[in-house]
């Protein structure tokens, strides 16, 4: 999910290794196969380190950028209770970003470096956040589908071989469960107790978010050349297609409870496979959005860059003040 762009890229070339490094790597892989956790100061192949920095930081970026589409509706939440819930949820996302930046920092990068990579466009974030939130129903649908997809992706990551990432994921998963439930609850109220206009709003939101949610899981397995290495190293536990199928199966039942229609005429139960067949995903759209040509790519990045740039004087002042005090205390 957070490696969508990496999945699309051609298979990475491995640099030549010395005999000693080959031996270290063999020992490292034995530890992985044994189900051992790798901690920050353990020896690790450079490629493992680089892959993790990219994945974890892109996961962190996704949480932070992910605050924006929902943040768009905080001021317009229709009740004080919903405003409270939405604020708490978006705040959790900030916290998750923070835990993940911290996990990435254990691998030798810094918060500033990661933020610079995001702002320059080198680092990516999950494609889903490049879509606009056009109605209040989007808040419910994002909780149901987008957080639902994220949870499906995140639970296996609690067993990722890199321990700081796994620990961050445990903390995140604990906090995440209310995110999906509050969204589903909001939709249930609108569908079961709301007006016709509200029900239309919900269905429209489902129509817009369904396919992009399926794209969250990344390109099909046979188009993700870098996934194999990630799986080998215990970074990626389940394939894109496996997770996507799990998600579709779960959503069909949930959609029925809600009384909404998933916008896929080809969606149907396949008795033989024991899963739901679903229609073709528009991978051209996916590639466009990942490459920066989605509806909101520009706004999302601009908002983050602005927040950072506008905040520079604040961060500088805080440091300047801390230094002044340290000097005064030393002199005293």
């Amino acid at each position, binding site marked *: 999910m957070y490696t969508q762009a990496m999945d699309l890229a051609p298979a990475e070339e491995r640099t030549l290794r010395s005999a000693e490094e080959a031996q270290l790597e063999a020992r490292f892989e034995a530890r992985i196969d044994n189900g051992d956790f790798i901690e920050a100061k353990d020896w690790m192949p450079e490629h493992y380190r680089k892959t993790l920095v990219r994945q974890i930081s892109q996961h962190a970026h996704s949480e932070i950028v992910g605050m924006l589409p929902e943040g768009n509706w905080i001021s*317009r939440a229709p009740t*004080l209770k919903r405003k*409270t819930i939405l604020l708490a949820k978006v705040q959790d996302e*900030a916290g998750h970003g923070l835990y993940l930046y911290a996990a990435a920092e254990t691998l030798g990068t810094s918060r500033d470096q990661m933020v610079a990579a995001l702002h320059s466009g080198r680092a990516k974030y999950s494609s889903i956040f490049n879509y606009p939130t056009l109605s209040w129903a989007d808040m419910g649908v994002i909780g149901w589908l987008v957080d639902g997809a994220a949870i499906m992706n995140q639970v296996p990551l609690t067993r990722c071989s890199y321990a700081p990432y796994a620990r961050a994921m445990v903390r995140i998963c604990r906090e995440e469960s209310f995110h999906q439930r509050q969204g589903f609850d909001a939709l249930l109220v609108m569908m079961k107790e709301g*007006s016709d206009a509200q029900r239309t709003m919900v269905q429209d939101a489902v129509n817009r978010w369904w396919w992009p949610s399926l794209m969250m899981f990344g390109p099909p397995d046979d188009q993700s050349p870098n996934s194999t290495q990630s799986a080998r190293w215990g970074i990626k536990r389940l394939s894109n297609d496996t997770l996507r199928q799990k998600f579709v199966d779960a959503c069909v039942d949930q959609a029925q409870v809600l009384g909404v229609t998933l916008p896929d005429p080809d969606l149907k139960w396949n008795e033989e496979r024991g899963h739901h067949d679903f229609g073709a995903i528009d991978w051209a759209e996916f590639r466009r959005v990942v490459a920066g040509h989605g509806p909101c790519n520009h706004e999302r990045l601009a908002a983050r860059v602005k927040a950072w740039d506008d905040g520079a004087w604040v961060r*500088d002042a*805080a440091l*300047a*003040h801390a230094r002044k005090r340290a000097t005064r205390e030393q002199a005293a």
Partner: protein
Amino acid sequence: MTSIRLQMTAPLHYVLRIADTCLIHAQRLAEWCGHGPVIEEDIALTNMALDLLGQARALLTRAALIEGEGLDEDRLAFLRDEDQFFNLTLVEQPLRKPSAHAAGGDFADTVLRNFLLATWLKALWQRLATSSDAELAAIAGKAVKEARYHQQHAADWVVRLGDGTPESAQRMRAALARAWPYTNEMFVRDSVDAEAEAAGLGPARDALHDVWRAEVAEVLAAATLALPAETPFIATGTIGRHSEHLGFVLAEMQVLQRTHPGGRW
């Protein structure tokens, strides 16, 4: 949806002043969510907004009971018109970006307003803890702890920015110049205050002045910021006559309930 019109009484007016101040300040603070200068502070500001929103909800619920016509926190928040909102005019001023009407709206304005307001609220909650209205007293007992934390956090920022870099000091001075005239409204004594005081409901606003002034002066001094000169300007949000900003704040806040009368959320 058609607006509701309240039958005003002094106790209702008194409670709504505090409720609306908390509500509108929370609404403004929430604008920072996702846009803060640093993620950690984003989380802190949102916590503050959540605390204030909780206080507003409790007070609005109490106000609805005082009003006695079967209203609730949401109908009060989303269906009243501007002239029946009674928040301090200070809290409707821009906070994250300048508006078409006025300059200002940056992090300096934010930390300063948080500080000035939390200092005022702390003094208010402390007195309200012995209100003749048991519910109000209970709300105050919880809220004073939150106000203490908000004041500490905001005061630390006022000092950091006032005594940080030349740029941060200049921004703080500008923020202080913008906010100061609005603080007079915090200490006006009118008939609503007098009646509340007489009934033991809560303190009149002027009773809060000295304690507020002393705490503010101390922090501004630590921040190397000069106390601004007094001005004769007295804002009037607390009697329902607002600045040009509240209309926009309410338009945004109330839009869904107005568009979907009787909607269930």
